């Protein structure tokens, strides 16, 4: 159950920028290297020679569908799972065999993980207590961290008295209190409602950038990954599909899976003229990572909604079949032959493109990703 959002569910804008702790000039986190990790559960290979390097102070999102191995990768890094093969290096030190409690990593979990028998301050101070900090120092540090996440006035409240958003913010403060080498976030926003999720996302990112702490963030929500991460690692079946900065991942996906998992794509079958792909009558170039005609005789181009243009034309081959208003833009479903193309247009333009309007479809971008052909549904 997600408790209702309250006025203090999310810190006021700019709260995270309040100077509660000294702003570091250099990253406080350590670099992480995951070397060829494999982990099998029964017949399922959760991680298959998974390798990833994360720079100090970087926020990397592990993105993928359920069962792709992203949580297993995080748990191996945290020390809750032992890899069958491979190494985990933190700050250049091999920690593969080190138990979780000695790894110096703060973690925020998907479900509410605050200790029910402790108030917010005691929860935040728990890690410091384990490090034998004195009561006064612990209290001061906990208060400082609670102020950082905008919950100073809730320090004496118990978890059951806090909303879901507040609990996750206390959990974040608790993870940060120990000044971890790496901060691990395991889908911490998935149990929250949309508004709180969006605001807390910004707050986490602001705090991470201020403290420059190395962070690994697991999510299945592409919007979350693209908006928060320095780099996004898209995973599938225990392996990495692509690791890149969000803009590049969206604009230049290197596999069909990434193109379809991240953002929205439409498929159009490519024809060829002198070995060069022709899409919608326009000569194009194949993007790196594209499938080759040697492996597949028929190829499709994957196109983003903003890569396509649409113009009203009585003689046009395509027809607008549906439109979805998204605010500044409107997404049109345009039927071309047996294929439905998703095309984004400005909403004032879309007002003139009601369903049944005949249109002509063109391309904005002449560099396209070619993938193996797939028959359109319903053909």
């Amino acid at each position: 159950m997600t408790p209702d959002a309250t006025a203090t569910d999310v810190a006021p804008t700019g709260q995270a920028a309040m100077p509660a702790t000294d702003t570091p000039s250099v990253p406080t986190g350590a670099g992480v290297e995951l070397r060829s990790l494999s982990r099998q559960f029964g017949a399922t290979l959760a991680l298959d020679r998974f390798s990833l390097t994360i720079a100090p102070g970087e926020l990397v999102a592990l993105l993928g569908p359920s069962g792709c191995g992203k949580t297993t990768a995080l748990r191996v890094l945290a020390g809750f799972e032992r890899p069958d093969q491979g190494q985990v290096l933190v700050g250049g030190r091999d920690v593969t065999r080190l138990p979780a409690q000695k790894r110096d990593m703060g973690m925020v979990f998907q479900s509410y993980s605050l200790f029910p028998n402790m108030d917010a301050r005691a929860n935040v101070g728990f890690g410091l207590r384990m490090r034998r900090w004195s009561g006064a120092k612990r209290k001061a540090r906990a208060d400082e961290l609670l102020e950082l996440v905008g919950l100073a006035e809730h320090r004496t409240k118990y978890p059951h008295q806090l909303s879901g958003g507040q609990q996750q913010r206390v959990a974040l403060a608790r993870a940060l209190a120990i000044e971890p080498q790496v901060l691990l976030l395991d889908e911490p926003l998935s149990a929250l409602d949309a508004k709180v999720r969006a605001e807390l996302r910004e707050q986490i990112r602001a705090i991470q950038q201020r403290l420059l702490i190395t962070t690994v963030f697991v999510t299945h929500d592409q919007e979350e990954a693209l908006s928060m991460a320095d780099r996004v690692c898209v995973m599938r079946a225990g392996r990495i599909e692509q690791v890149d900065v969000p803009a590049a991942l969206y604009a230049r996906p290197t596999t069909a899976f990434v193109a379809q998992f991240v953002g929205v794509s439409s498929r159009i079958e490519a024809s060829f003229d002198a070995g060069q792909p022709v899409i919608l009558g326009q000569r194009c170039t194949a993007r790196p990572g594209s499938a080759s005609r040697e492996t597949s005789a028929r190829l499709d181009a994957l196109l983003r909604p903003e890569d396509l243009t649409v113009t009203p034309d009585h003689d046009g081959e395509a027809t607008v079949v549906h439109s979805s208003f998204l605010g500044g833009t409107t997404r049109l479903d345009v039927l071309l032959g047996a294929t439905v193309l998703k095309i984004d247009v400005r909403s004032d333009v879309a007002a003139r493109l009601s369903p049944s309007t005949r249109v002509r479809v063109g391309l904005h971008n002449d560099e396209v990703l070619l993938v193996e052909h797939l028959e359109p549904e319903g053909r």
Partner: protein
Amino acid sequence: MAQVDTASIDAEYLLAFDRGAPEASMVAKQRRRFSIPWFRWLVLLLAALFFIIPLVAGVIFSLQNDAGQFSLDSIRAINQQIGFSDAFRLSLQLALITVVISMALVVPTAVYVHLKVPKLLAAVEFTTLLPIVFPPIVLILGVLHVTPPFLKDHAWFLALFYVVLAMPFAYRAVESGLQAMDLQVLVEASRSLGGRWGSTLLRVILPNLTTSLISSVVLVTALVFSEYTMSSLAGWITLPVWTEQFAQANGHIVTAVAMLTLLGVWVVLSLIVLVDLSRARLQQRKRSSTS
């Protein structure tokens, strides 16, 4: 102070109810929930009488002398009866040992099975229920036959049997507490913050198991104070054995002992609940004063 017009509130409430306002219908639902049909009251009454009548009869009998008149002589005489103090002390000692061993055995086992081998939960639960299936007389006679005499001379020996006998109650109480908490996440949260297994158990798991542990301790204690077969066959005069032996001599005194034992358990239970409540109130006061 502003005057509150209760008549207008009632009218508004009725209007809201007529309109089918959500709040009003919720109140109506709650009222319906608390309006118990007469036959349920009857079942409740019969069940209450079933438990209360023997207790009342026992109290009345213990407060009578041989002539059938009201008298506190039976209660006054308890402490002077030969063997009572020793039997009571032995039962108390056995209860303490049994509780300590049971908790030391059950809590880490239940936690370990939940965290590491959850597939074995059903098997472990079945195993802990076995002492109910086997009659205590079979257990004690078999073990007594092979036990060296010097081992039989210590109360610890009997306590070990009680640990086995109390296992179903001790385990189930702890198990229900563990199921009510998100154990895996709490343990992982503690470990990621640097908590070792010992501190995780003491500072995170046990404080959230308080109610279950209290239930477990009370059940184990009650069992030790009422077990007769094993102690009599092993030759120990515990409170139930003494009660049985002394019953031949004076029924009024024995009934008074049974009633006082029951009262003692009730008082201890009430104290535990009161301490728990006052602790919660103290925390509440602390919260309101600091916030």
